[in-house]
């Protein structure tokens, strides 16, 4: 079987495209490749319109099955290829985009999915929301990025030193003049953005990672990540704990516009002994693993997640979490492996809708629940090593059930086979325009 794959961020461009639309699909592709290679011959295309059908026709001529997995939202998936095309998409809201906003019919994902006839996604939440839009029998399957197996080597790695080698921008809240980032100073500076602290390069080579470390890896331009609550609640919960660190690793090509706001968030909570570390640096695999293994808890309080690769990596490697239990996180977060942060619905918009119309429901993180989760998790890390060890094991086990090759492979194989079968039966295919009312 030939498996054609595509996403719009080329591997070589990913560092420049961090924080831009769909950049994270590149990381998903990287995680899927080993699994796909177990199932068939993988060919990554750079230009689907010109490459996919040529390969497909060559395959057809020799009767070899061929399928195109487009790692993109349905709205950006090609709709006019002869090759069976399946969008592989992440979605973290309650309502699939079901309006042709911007004058573009493809923004109504229902129309694209109906045309393509199937979809592949990464969580049972997205499967349920897709079926809510498309009908209960729509062929859509949940296959998360199968990264669990890869992380087991990291899990078994001997404990690294408490020094994180880093080559990039680091801001340590305890060594920064936070008063310079108060609200009035920020407003006075407008339209300019306040400059970064002068000592951001001071930490080159090493960050001390001892103590209780909470790590969140996210794009600071993504409002869903709720960094303000992360910071505020951390400073409130552990303000007197000098060995507590909140490490925010920023995934963005240029976070200098957002950092002053993040420093203001630390300032608003008043003097605190705990440390907030902002890290904007490329970490190679060994450095990334040192960060992971020095992390006590992985942190996620987003308003929604399509799967959340960093959280999955950390938990697969046995790092318990402080996290919400909604959307895709509902598939792997439970009280055995995480300190659960409560949440409840609120109104939201589709992130790519330029009208920013209220069209869907997302999750509101409960602030005080997060404060309690920080306090309880800190206590466990300091005083209950047995509980911590049990949570670590539970995290690895939970993610094994969610995103190991053992789980993902048969599910994906079965799904691809059914997709090929549907494509072969002309009566079942939905390539011609139909009216679905």
């Amino acid at each position, binding site marked *: 079987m030939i498996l054609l794959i595509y996403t719009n961020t080329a591997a070589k461009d990913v560092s420049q495209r961090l924080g*831009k*639309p769909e950049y994270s699909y590149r990381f998903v592709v990287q995680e899927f490749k080993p699994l796909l290679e177990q199932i068939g011959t993988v060919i990554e295309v750079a230009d689907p319109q010109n490459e996919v059908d040529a390969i497909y026709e060559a395959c057809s001529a020799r009767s070899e099955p061929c399928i195109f997995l487009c790692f993109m939202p349905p*709205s*950006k998936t090609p*709709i*006019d290829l002869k090759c069976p095309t399946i969008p592989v998409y992440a979605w973290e809201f309650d309502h699939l985009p*079901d*309006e042709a*906003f*911007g*004058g*573009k*019919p*493809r*923004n*109504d994902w*229902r*129309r*694209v999915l*109906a*045309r393509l006839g199937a979809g592949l996604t990464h969580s049972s939440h997205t499967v349920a929301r897709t079926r809510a839009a498309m009908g209960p029998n729509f062929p859509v399957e949940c296959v998360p990025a199968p990264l669990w197996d890869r992380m087991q080597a990291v899990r078994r790695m001997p404990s690294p030193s408490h020094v994180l080698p880093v080559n990039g921008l680091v801001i340590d809240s305890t060594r920064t003049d936070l008063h310079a980032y*108060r*609200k*009035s100073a920020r407003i006075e500076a407008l339209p300019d953005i306040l400059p970064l602290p002068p000592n951001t390069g001071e930490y080159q080579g090493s960050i001390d990672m001892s103590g209780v470390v909470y790590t969140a890896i996210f794009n600071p331009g993504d409002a869903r990540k709720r960094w303000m609550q992360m910071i*505020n609640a951390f400073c*409130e919960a552990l303000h007197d704990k000098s060995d507590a660190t909140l490490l925010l690793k920023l995934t963005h090509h240029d976070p200098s516009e957002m950092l002053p706001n993040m420093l203001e968030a630390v*300032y*608003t*909570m*008043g003097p605190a002994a705990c440390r907030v570390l902002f890290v904007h640096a490329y970490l190679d695999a060994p450095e990334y693993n040192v960060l992971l293994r020095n992390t006590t808890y992985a942190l996620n309080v987003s308003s929604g997640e399509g799967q959340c690769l960093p959280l999955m990596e950390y938990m697969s490697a046995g790092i318990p979490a402080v996290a919400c239990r909604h959307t895709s996180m509902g598939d792997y977060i439970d009280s055995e492996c995480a300190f659960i942060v*409560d949440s*409840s*619905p*609120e*109104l939201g*918009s589709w*992130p*790519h*809708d*330029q*009208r*920013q*119309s*209220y069209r869907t*429901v997302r999750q*509101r993180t*409960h*602030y*005080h*629940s997060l*404060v309690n989760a920080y306090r309880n998790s800190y206590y466990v890390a300091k005083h209950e090593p047995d509980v911590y060890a049990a949570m670590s094991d539970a995290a690895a086990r939970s993610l094994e059930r969610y995103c190991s090759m053992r789980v993902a492979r048969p599910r994906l194989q079965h799904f691809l086979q059914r997709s090929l079968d549907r494509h072969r039966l002309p009566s079942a295919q*939905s390539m011609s*325009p*139909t*009216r*679905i*009312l």
Partner: protein
Amino acid sequence: MKFLLYASINGSSIGDQLGAADYSYYFLLRAFAVVLQKLGDVIELGDASQADAIHDQCVTKGEECVLLSFAPPHKTPLGLECPVVPLFAWEYPNIPEHIEEKSWHSDPRNDWRVVLGATGRAICLSTHTAEAVRRSMGRGYPITAIPAPIPASLTRPRAHHSLPHDAPTLLRLNASIVDSLRVALDPNGVVHAETIDEAPFHPSDHDVLPEFEHARHAKPHRAEDDHADAAEGFLEGTPYSAPLPCGWEIPPSIPIQITLRGMVYTSVLTPQAGRKNWEDLITAFCWTFRDNEDATLILKLAGRDLSHNHLQLLMMLTKLSPFKCRVIAIYGYLSDEEYASLAAATTYYVNTSLCEGLCLPLVEFLNWGTPAIAPNNTAMADYINQDIAFVVKSYPGLPTVWPHGDHQINRTSYNQLDWGALVEAFEQSYDVAHRDVARYRDMSARAHQAMQAYCGNEVIEEALRTFFHRELAIERNRRTVSPSTRPLHLVELDSR
């Protein structure tokens, strides 16, 4: 017994001052004056410094005299011979204990313990506030929670009215009014340039892609026939006009007649007080009733920058559109009669605040027999329960700034509202008013009874009598002892 009443805002200026800092203290003064008149002579002072002259005369005549200051503690007049009782509203779980804000200019009164220590006693409106004060002043500090008194009944309670869905209700107001039916709301009118939508388009997409039913309907079904009064110009034989068409400008204040159908939800609030949380109110209402033209939300809005609030409102409604329900905004002051007619037209009062020192409009509407949708946080914990309201969950502890400080550092907290629970409350309340009239009437009757028991004039008269009886006895004792003797709690405070 003489009661001198002082508030920084008085009756002659209130029309211009709606929504200004402390404006609601005037309403408090007005409400308490009615009851205080039964306990003694009431004199409203324009200037607190007039108090000592009156106090001197009273002392000469052997009459008790006390100044009630309707103001936050840091604005309480101090240094008077006349005993002062601060009467204040406060919606946060702690009180200022440090002169920590630059804008407070080192004025020691901004440490409220100093003021409360000097006055020696205080009245607040809620148990929540009394607890906050006791945490700072000590358990024994004489603070009493006495809510604003309300008269037995200004109108007949709601339970005796016909239910609102029985027939259309006419509401006549002389005010600036925005009616969502008269605003050309178009979600495509807003473009957020920073949002990136790179979805491709090809002209053949319309033909190639299978069609689906539109997820949202653009227009209210029966706008034309049922909202016939939405025509322009004066309504025949009356000085009233239908609501005017409205764009980005606030419409002029003129006599308007509104025909209301179905369930009417009303909220009275000042949007610029962020704690009032009108975003949750409007989004939850329009989301819940997006397919229901029988629900109307009336917002009676006050504030110093209504034209800004108007833009905010239109932006919210635009992003929510299309919806079939109706949103009406009333900007500015209503006369007492108009206010009462608004209450009479209302099925439910809605409060979505993150914290409250009392919420007088909510209390008033409940007293008129209008059941509520409200959280039971802060002061509302004293009177909101499921007998009279659909209680919306909220969660304490969200950090925020002092409302009267520099707004730089979070020094207190308020609540997060559960938006999902608010949507459920809208759904359930609609169902009850629509299908379970007996329960609605029961809630209505209980609301009136509960408010009379909570803050009816007689109840408050008794509470005030007890307070002053005790405190003036202490005051007399204090005077007979050495003048340098200071109340115990003040000594405690100094020794900290």
